[in-house]
């Protein structure tokens, strides 16, 4: 999507107000108000705990996925890495390896998966869509291969309890804190560092990024490694939370992650999107499905509603862009133009 000079020439607060991120956050607020007041049993600590436990893997993986989609690439293999990590954890613990050691091995496996994806995409130059469809099948195949069709369900209670642990009596799961730390790290990386500016530059124009000195290959490689590593972490959490290691764990999770990222205002064409929008996107889907489940709405109807929401939100990008362009042009005609483009750096993409 092309962005005109006019769209950068409006004051900061107005650009924030008409942005996709703000729209999603406002929608999330509306849904929350409806759920809290209109859905019985929603406004309980138990609901909040379950909600946060359920969406934790999606939240975690959405962080690196956002960065990857901003570069204009995609990683479809994340759910298979979750499955592989889950299967590895089960097999290792079953053979008497201590959980922390097994978890480190799983993370290492994640790094290896990411290196393979990153190497093929960044250095060999293959399209990420094709590469990660391939590794989606490959990693899932290995996961089912190492474990077979059985499930390993005996994990030490102190570790499975840790996966579900709450911070004090607040009802906020420990994994949410882990996410918060990672989210701060990713925000600093993506929105407040030279590396992050490079990520956006690649997404806007990969060739131009090369000429302005952005290490395109290294950046993409690093993002794919990050993505698989975080997915492996999600796999460890997933396994311990359900005390169940299966090769088919988290099948289809990649689409839930990508849906939430796109809902959060990240452009599939790259170059545009902010992490707070993505977090709001994940929360929106989580809150909506939780509230609808409490209302007794069946899974098919929930899927239809979320699907429609996604389609509407993708359409709204174009509509919003048009509205803001029109408003900006009218504004320009009426008053004197608003100084220089403020947002060349990382302000709004």
């Amino acid at each position, binding site marked *: 999507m092309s962005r005109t000079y006019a769209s950068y020439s409006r004051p900061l607060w107005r650009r924030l107000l008409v942005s996709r991120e703000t729209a999603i956050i*406002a929608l999330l607020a509306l849904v929350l108000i409806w759920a*809290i007041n209109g859905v019985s049993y929603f406004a*309980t600590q138990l609901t909040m705990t*379950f909600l946060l436990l*359920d969406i934790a893997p999606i939240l975690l993986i959405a962080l690196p996925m956002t960065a990857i989609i901003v570069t204009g690439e995609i990683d479809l293999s994340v759910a298979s890495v979750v499955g592989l990590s889950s299967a590895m954890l089960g097999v290792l613990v079953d053979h008497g390896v201590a959980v922390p050691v097994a978890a480190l091995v799983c993370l290492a496996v994640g790094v290896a998966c990411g290196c393979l994806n990153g190497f093929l995409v960044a250095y060999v130059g293959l399209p990420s869509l094709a590469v990660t469809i391939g590794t989606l099948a490959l990693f899932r195949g290995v996961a089912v291969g190492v474990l077979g069709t059985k499930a390993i369900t005996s994990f030490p209670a102190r570790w499975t309890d840790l996966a579900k642990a709450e911070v004090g009596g607040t009802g906020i799961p420990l994994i949410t804190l882990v996410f918060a730390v990672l989210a701060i790290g990713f925000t600093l990386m993506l929105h407040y560092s030279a590396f992050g500016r490079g990520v956006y530059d690649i997404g806007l124009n990969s060739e131009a990024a090369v000429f302005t000195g952005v290490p395109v290959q290294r950046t993409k490689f690093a993002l794919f490694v990050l993505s698989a590593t975080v997915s492996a972490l999600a796999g460890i959490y997933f396994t311990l*939370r359900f005390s*169940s290691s299966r090769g088919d764990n988290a099948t289809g999770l990649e689409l839930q992650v990508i849906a939430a990222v796109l809902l959060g205002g990240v452009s599939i064409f790259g170059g545009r999107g902010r992490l707070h929008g993505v977090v709001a996107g994940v929360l929106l889907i989580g809150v909506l499905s939780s509230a609808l489940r*409490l209302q007794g709405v069946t899974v098919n109807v929930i899927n239809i509603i979320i699907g429609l929401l996604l389609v509407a939100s993708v359409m709204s990008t174009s509509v919003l862009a048009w509205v803001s362009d029109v408003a900006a042009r009218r504004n320009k005609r009426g008053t004197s133009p608003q100084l220089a483009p403020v947002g060349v750096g990382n302000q709004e993409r």
Partner: protein
Amino acid sequence: MLIYSKKVAGLAAVTLTFALALTGCGKGSGDNNDSTSSSGSKKASITFIPKNLGNPYFDTSDAGGKKAVEELGGTYAQVGPQEASPDAQAQYIDTEAQKHTSAIVVSANDPQALCDSLKKARDAGTKVVTFDSDTNPECRDLFINQATADGIAKVEVDMIAEQIGDSGEIAILSASANATNKNAWIDLMKKDLAADHPNIKLVETVYGNDDDQTSFDKTAALLQKHPDLKGIISPTTVGIAAAARYLSKSDKKGKVALTGLGTPNQMREYVKDGTVTEFALWNPEDLGYLAAYAADALVKGDIKGDEGDKFKAGKLGDFTVGADHTVLLGDPFKFNKDNIDQFKF
């Protein structure tokens, strides 16, 4: 400017919604609303959570459950995931715990993975009944068992004995060679044959690995290798359907009896064209019906789920809780051309 004031209003509105949402959250997380005193006087709300939705087997069993809940004057609901995965199913169990549903009836996608959710549900006062597929025994109040190994083995031997006139050569077409439950049934069948049917000779047991094509090929090989074969038992739904498909097109149709465990939808065609006289399974409708009555008895406090507890399950009569907090539905159900059209699973 006009536009500006509109935007200011918009900003204010957004800020306000945030404030509302935040305060709402804070207040909501503290109190438990009106955690309804659902036990005793109030009518039981019973929710069925099958392995997945849109599965004809569970549609049938849950229809039985619905009938029972309606007879009891309770509220029936059916929720569940689209795909049979434990993590998706756990979310539905969690939801029922949040709603303080009186009882849930679950067919578990994993014996262990659901335990944490089930425990939370039981802590919240929800009774947990499993049916069809059990969880670990400590995770639920009762398991409604569709059939025992003894019952399954006996009904299959009885059917083949009846169909071949209690004498001659038979073979078994099983799933995989290391399927624990199938091997247990086959051992029991062998004992039963040796004890009560001396004239029936089991000549071979072959394994189709629950794969349609393999089972089909193994059936063909069996018939060639044993020209005097009079009957085949296939204690697996995949195997019996593949064997029936082969038999129905071969000149052995009607001459070699075929029986075992199958589902009416898969076997309807072969029962109607005379390839198969009678096969067995349990009746999922009765299974759901019994599960609902058991759940209701737990909710009302008539039973605790301990061994020896007795309760009445409507048209199915009286049941007693057995070892490991298990209730047995009864003998397997036989399907033949007279009743097969009543079943749609």
